[in-house]
């Protein structure tokens, strides 16, 4: 690693550590301010200030060092006297704010603050002198100092405001080492601070190994017989790899407490600025969520807390008039709900007005009303102006993760904003593959193995293959999803999929490998299409559709069961015919001709629609299709039918106004059984062709 890179890494580590320590200082200071402080609070405050000072000094951050030093001096004195005057919390909180700004690089001038702190310290020294005179030599107070060096006498002059940063120290040991060693000896669990980038690299590498494993399995699958040793080793390796991957993914999970640190402080400041009295409670802080989700959540929680404090909680006087406790209560609650986590921001403030409830009734729900962009400017809710601020952003965020936003509120009784978020669904290991020129993915957890389809058996008239002694149905993914795609090659890759207790084999054009991807929801418009769990953006800009594993096994099982209908077919029953035609009148004409002749008829508006109908209805015995249609035309439809193992022998009749020989040839080449032109259309010819093809 270059010197500059090493230095940058150190600076990153310092920033992370300092921010964490500043959060802890805020927590302690707030506790002291509200009367909950004790000797340990002061010890811990001192230790944090001291550590920040030391690290800043090693890295050459002179201004940070100076300010941390000033705070440390005051805290040393407090430790000495055993008295923490309550009015000392405010300047120290200003100091932590200023330090935070410096650490994040948004520094503000600190001259005033340094002299304020110096004044505080001088005042403390006077108090100490008085106390010492009164109590005598033994009066070192309740909070015994144990570091004589830090109990520096008050005559040390306060550090001057730095003008020039000190030269950077390149040989500095990692400043985090000191902090983590201290934490490790006091904490119950040994923790290690690791830069996020290293963790991401570990995850990428684990995903890459997964990919190699899929390729290895694929390559080995081409051999006729695998030795038992090889498959044992492969199996054991696979299990360990799964464990590695799970552990690595688990590292992305962080407790909510990772982002709630600064919140009590933010609430205090907001409440003060708004002139409100607010008690803030966090419950379920150990609930875990994906790091990426947490990062975005942090900002949104600030929005929600601001709304609760500024617009929800009433002033103390108003609350007394409403027979409520003077102090308002704001709660942040995290509750695990299966694979989701519920994040609730609740307040016991004024809630929404009856008019808003009424308007919400018209709009559908409170959430959809309040989260409308620009809602807060709406006339009917001027008394709540601002309540909707940021809620549209919250809603967009929640929706983008496939979650849900709901809001509960009653006039006078507070409000609860509930964010239902996926635990870690946003990141998922998927196996990517191609079919018909497009990329699809399926959850890697559902993939048992990848083999090459060499020998296809038929079982109950449907394609099947033997996998480890079990016969599984084989389905082309194009058929499963109902897409138009050219026929599969000779030896297509076959993915053995397991969902629940069902297994099935899916074939495709080619495998692209395993990847950890961010799953994006398809949204309400596609909500009725259960075949997909979402989509993901690939590195090359393409979009991969992620197929639900249950779809792959369920559809395959249905397809396999089709030839053996539960109700024995009535031998007298006429075969069912699918009419595919985009023109309503032609469609109805054909339907009436066929129905009059005694055939049950179902219809579809174009080729794509037709494939979906075929998928749903296993009874269809013949397809009559138009040639020119939007989406998927008659030729493409015919090809898709021929490409599907399950329906390759389904008779297809093309009826079209295009009567040229070229068209006829293309139709026949695509696999149509008959071709007739609309111009020469006659009902008897159609019925004769149909009867011949269905064998009646």
């Amino acid at each position, binding site marked *: 690693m270059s010197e500059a890179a090493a230095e940058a890494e150190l600076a990153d580590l310092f920033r992370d550590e300092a921010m964490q320590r500043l959060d802890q200082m805020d927590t302690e200071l707030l506790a002291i301010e509200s009367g909950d402080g004790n000797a340990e609070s002061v010890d811990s405050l001192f230790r944090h200030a001291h550590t920040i000072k030391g690290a800043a000094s090693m890295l050459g951050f002179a201004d940070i060092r100076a300010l941390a030093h000033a705070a440390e001096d005051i805290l040393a004195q407090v430790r000495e006297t055993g008295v923490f005057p309550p009015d000392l919390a405010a300047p120290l909180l200003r100091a932590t704010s200023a330090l935070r700004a410096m650490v994040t690089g948004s520094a503000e001038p600190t001259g005033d603050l340094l002299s304020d702190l110096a004044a505080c310290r001088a005042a403390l020294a006077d108090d100490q002198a008085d106390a010492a005179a009164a109590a005598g030599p033994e009066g070192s107070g309740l909070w015994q100092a144990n570091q004589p060096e830090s109990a520096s006498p008050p005559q040390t002059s306060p550090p001057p405001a730095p003008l020039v940063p000190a030269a950077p120290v390149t040989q500095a040991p990692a400043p985090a080492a000191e902090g983590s060693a201290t934490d490790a000896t006091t904490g119950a669990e040994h923790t290690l601070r690791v830069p996020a980038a290293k963790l991401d690299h570990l995850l990428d590498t684990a995903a890459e190994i997964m990919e190699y494993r899929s390729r290895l399995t694929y390559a080995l699958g081409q051999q006729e017989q695998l030795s038992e040793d090889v498959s044992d080793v492969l199996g054991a390796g696979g299990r360990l790899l799964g464990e590695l991957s799970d552990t690595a993914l688990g590292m992305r999970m962080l407790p909510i407490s990772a982002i709630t640190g600064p919140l009590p402080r933010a609430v205090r400041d907001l409440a003060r600025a708004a002139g409100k009295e607010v008690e803030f409670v966090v419950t379920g802080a150990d609930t875990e969520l994906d790091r990426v989700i947490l990062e975005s959540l942090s900002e949104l929680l600030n929005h929600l807390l601001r709304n609760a404090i500024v617009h929800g909680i009433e002033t103390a006087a108003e609350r007394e008039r409403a027979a409520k406790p003077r102090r308002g209560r704001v709660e942040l609650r995290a509750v695990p709900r299966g694979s989701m986590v519920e994040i609730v921001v609740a307040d016991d403030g004024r809630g929404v007005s009856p008019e808003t409830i009424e308007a919400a009734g018209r709009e*559908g729900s409170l*959430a*959809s009303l309040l*989260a409308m*962009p*620009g809602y807060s400017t709406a006339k009917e809710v001027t008394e709540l102006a601002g309540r909707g601020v940021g809620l549209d952003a919250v*809603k967009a965020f929640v*929706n*983008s993760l496939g979650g849900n936003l709901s809001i509960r509120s009653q006039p006078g009784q507070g409000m609860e904003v509930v964010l239902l978020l996926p635990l870690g669904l946003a990141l998922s290991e998927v196996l990517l593959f191609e079919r018909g020129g*497009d990329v699809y993915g399926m959850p890697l957890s559902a993939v048992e193995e990848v083999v090459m389809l060499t020998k296809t058996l038929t079982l109950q008239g449907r394609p099947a293959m033997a996998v480890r002694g079990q016969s599984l149905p084989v389905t082309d993914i*194009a058929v499963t*999803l*109902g*897409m138009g795609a050219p026929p599969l090659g000779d030896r297509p890759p076959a993915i053995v999929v397991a969902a629940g207790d069902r297994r099935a084999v899916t074939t495709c054009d080619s495998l692209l490998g395993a990847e950890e991807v961010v799953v*994006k*929801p*398809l*949204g*309400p*418009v*596609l*909500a*009725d*299409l259960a*075949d*997909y769990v*979402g*989509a993901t*953006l690939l590195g090359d800009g*393409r*979009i991969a*559709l992620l197929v639900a594993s249950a779809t792959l096994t369920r559809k395959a099982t249905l397809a396999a069961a089709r030839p053996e209908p539960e109700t024995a077919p009535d031998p007298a029953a006429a075969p069912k015919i699918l009419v595919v035609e985009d023109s309503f009148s032609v469609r109805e004409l054909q339907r009436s001709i066929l129905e009059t002749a005694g055939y049950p008829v179902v219809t579809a*508006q*174009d080729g*794509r*629609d037709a*494939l*979906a109908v075929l*998928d749903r209805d296993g009874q269809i015995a013949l397809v009559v299709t138009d040639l020119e249609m*939007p*989406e998927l035309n008659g030729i493409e439809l015919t090809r898709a039918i021929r490409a599907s193992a399950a329906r390759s022998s389904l008779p297809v009749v093309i009826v079209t106004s295009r009567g040229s020989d070229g068209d006829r040839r293309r139709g026949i080449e695509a696999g149509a059984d008959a071709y007739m032109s609309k111009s020469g259309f006659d009902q008897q010819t159609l019925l004769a062709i149909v009867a011949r093809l269905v064998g009646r």
Partner: protein
Amino acid sequence: MGSYVRVTVAGEAYALPVEHVLEVGELGQLRAVPGARAELLGIKSVRGQIVPVVDLGRLLGVHRAAPPGRLLVAEALGFRVGFAIDEVTGIGDLGEPEEPDEDTESGLLAGATLSDGVLVGVLDVPRMFESLDGTRR
């Protein structure tokens, strides 16, 4: 009377209230979604979000001669939909729309109005979104 974004679809003029319109851009390449309804042309990534793209002409039941080239992203009921259109012709006020005719086939119009001698169909955006919302089917 608020502002409207005026668009053309298969040679006909339509207008959407401007507050529902997020952006307009090239239609570009779409990712097809097998099994989806016919009016859904595919999906597209717009600022990192997956947006379904609907053929507005087909939704309204107008037959189009040429494939649409532009994409208009709109939002209502808390979700976004991209509409394939021919082009945006302007943004501005419209006359008060008249009540829709009885024979308005799609039921997606809030009304129609004559503007500069052109008959403009005013789209009922929430109703369109309702008809597209798969969770309501």
